[in-house]
């Protein structure tokens, strides 16, 4: 596909997000969601490889179904509001349907199956867009929907996704699947954060984006689809590999890094709002997920792969490394900011 057309799609995606966040009516939200999906599909099939096409088909089916359910939910609630003959129950069911549709679009836990397959089929850059930017519309809807009626359900989804994200990644050797599970786990935190306070969810989402974009970029550069391929990273491209390991540690939420402070920020608020059981489940899920983060970090930082005499450093890719290391250093420095923010009065 011609690269000159990509601005069209990206601008459309940005437009869709702006549409959603500025709209107050479900039809425009639906509109924004559809717009985002339709604009993203050409980007997904950029290289026309069979894996990509398959992933795009899966993504399309799920998103279209979710959009239809979304519209149905909206219509049900509309008719409930309007007709009044259908009782109040219908209105609740409409809200619920909308929520389920959005949850499906986001890929939260019981509806998460498509995320893993789609991410596995994609390259790292579209995958990163899928796991970060494409979440914004859904989250924008979700924050507006997180009313008292649905909040307990959302909390449940959040807990289940933290657990599923942790458990699913345990045996994974595919880097992209692992990242997908990691994103599911983080999404659990994020949704609970949205319920606890929309600003919390937003800040945690920002943190996740800041953490994962460099990771995806580095992985794109190292071109490691399998965990085994990371072992040689330390020899070929040591700085990048170490930064990758540190980034994964940060993603896992180990204390000196940025990721920990996001989780800490959320946890202080959860505990402040007496969401104790939820916090325990979230922490358990994260603890399980820490296993595979540590495994990746171990492969990146500690294990020295087989060496060849002639293999030197791959200096050609070092131009971008400045940016990446800058971002990761920013991660590390950001901990002061977040640490300070968590000390602010709530």
């Amino acid at each position, binding site marked *: 596909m011609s690269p000159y057309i990509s601005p069209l799609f990206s601008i459309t995606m940005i437009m869709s997000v702006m549409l959603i966040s500025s709209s107050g009516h479900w039809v425009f939200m639906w509109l924004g969601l*559809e717009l985002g999906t*339709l604009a993203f599909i050409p980007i997904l099939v950029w290289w026309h490889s069979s894996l990509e096409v*398959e992933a795009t*088909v899966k993504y399309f089916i799920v998103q279209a179904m979710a*959009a239809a359910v979304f519209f149905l939910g909206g*219509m049900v609630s509309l*008719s409930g509001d309007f007709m009044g003959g259908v009782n109040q129950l219908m209105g609740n069911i409409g809200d619920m349907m909308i929520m389920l549709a959005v949850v499906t679009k986001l890929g939260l836990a019981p509806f998460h199956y498509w995320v893993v397959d789609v991410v596995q089929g994609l390259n790292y850059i579209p995958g990163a867009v899928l796991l970060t930017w494409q979440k914004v519309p859904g989250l924008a809807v979700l924050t507006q929907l997180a009313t008292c009626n649905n909040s307990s359900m959302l909390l449940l989804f959040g807990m289940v996704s933290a657990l599923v994200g942790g458990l699913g990644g345990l045996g994974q050797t595919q880097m992209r699947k692992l990242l997908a599970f990691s994103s599911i786990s983080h999404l659990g935190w994020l949704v609970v954060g949205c319920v606890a306070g929309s600003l919390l969810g937003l800040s945690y989402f920002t943190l996740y984006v800041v953490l994962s974009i460099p990771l995806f970029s580095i992985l794109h550069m190292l071109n490691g689809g399998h965990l085994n391929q990371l072992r040689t990273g330390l020899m070929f491209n040591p700085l990048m590999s170490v930064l990758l390991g540190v980034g994964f540690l940060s993603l896992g939420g180990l204390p000196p890094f940025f990721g920990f402070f996001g989780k800490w920020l959320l946890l202080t608020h959860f505990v402040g709002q007496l969401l104790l059981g939820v916090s325990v489940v979230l922490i358990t899920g994260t603890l399980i997920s820490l296993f595979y983060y540590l495994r990746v970090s171990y492969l990146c930082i500690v294990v020295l792969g087989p060496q060849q005499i002639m293999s030197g450093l791959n200096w050609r890719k070092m131009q971008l490394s400045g940016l990446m290391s800058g971002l990761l250093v920013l991660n590390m420095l950001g901990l002061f900011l977040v640490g300070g923010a968590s000390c602010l009065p709530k």
Partner: protein
Amino acid sequence: MLIMILIFLIALLGLGLSQTHLLSVLLCLEMMMVSLYLGLGMVSISGLHYPLMIALVLLTFSACEASSGLALLVLISRSHGSDLLKSFNLS
């Protein structure tokens, strides 16, 4: 209204349970969209008029969706050689 919801649900179940071809999946999606369109019409019959405008929007977007779905159908039959859903298991 309820009949419309029933049609939607049948389409949804058809989508989930008994499909072998991507084409029929697309057909089910189209059926869902059409049922929604019908539903909008019913709502507007009840005296509310702005859903009619929404119906236009819905129609436009369902057409877009259907066209991109068909494009994907072409792509996948070119890359996989068929449109059987069971063969979509490369990843």
